[in-house]
């Protein structure tokens, strides 16, 4: 299955890009008695340019995830000039 994550910036005068799409995330194992072990990927990066202050980045999926699954993303906070 495929989900498209969009990272729109809210106002004008701003740019955001991502380095590419991550490899497939496959859940294949679990500890007996526990929920399946989550998988993570940290191979991609993002960059942002803004002439404004107090801006934010939001993220949304192209469609809902299947029941019982969740897709989580963490964007490391960038340090300003």
């Amino acid at each position, binding site marked *: 299955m*495929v989900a498209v994550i969009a*990272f*729109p910036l809210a106002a*004008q*005068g701003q740019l955001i890009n991502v380095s590419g799409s991550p490899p497939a995330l496959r859940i*294949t*194992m679990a500890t007996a008695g526990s929920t399946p072990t989550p998988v993570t990927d940290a191979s991609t990066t993002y960059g942002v340019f803004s*002439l404004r202050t107090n801006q934010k980045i939001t993220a949304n999926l192209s469609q809902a995830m299947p029941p019982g699954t969740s897709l989580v993303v963490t964007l490391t906070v960038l340090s300003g000039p």
Partner: protein
Amino acid sequence: MKRFSPFASIAILMIAAGSLRAQSAAQVVTFEVKAVNEVGVTGSPNLVIDAAKPGESELSVQSTGNTWSVTTNQSRAKITAALDAPMPDGVTLSAQLAAPAGARSAGMKPLSTVPVDMVTSINHLNQGGLPLVYQLDAVSTLAKSTKGTRAVTYTVTGGA
């Protein structure tokens, strides 16, 4: 070399800012959840028959306090159990696994080197700390000092 004045630089930045529109980036994330079937056990049971009731032909002892756990994302999964070697003549090792929610336990089942169904109808769950009881039975005519160890292999197989 011609240099921009500070005012010109500010103006260029302001024009650049105005020309940029709200912008977005997208990533395609491919994901898949494979069949996951895991079973685990805890405890190191030690079964010793050292007493009998007068007149009984069967000697028996149980080991409680062991537990088992299971995770499966499939339906109609089951747990089987098998020994790594046959038990000595006159001695029977049995096991009983409590059923997780919605599943069926086969009850106390004698173990052998042929896998036997212990729990069936396990559907999409993860549950741990389930009681696991072993029972050792021996006929009273058995010679004393019969002892040994056996590995019990539990296997979870998914149905669909």
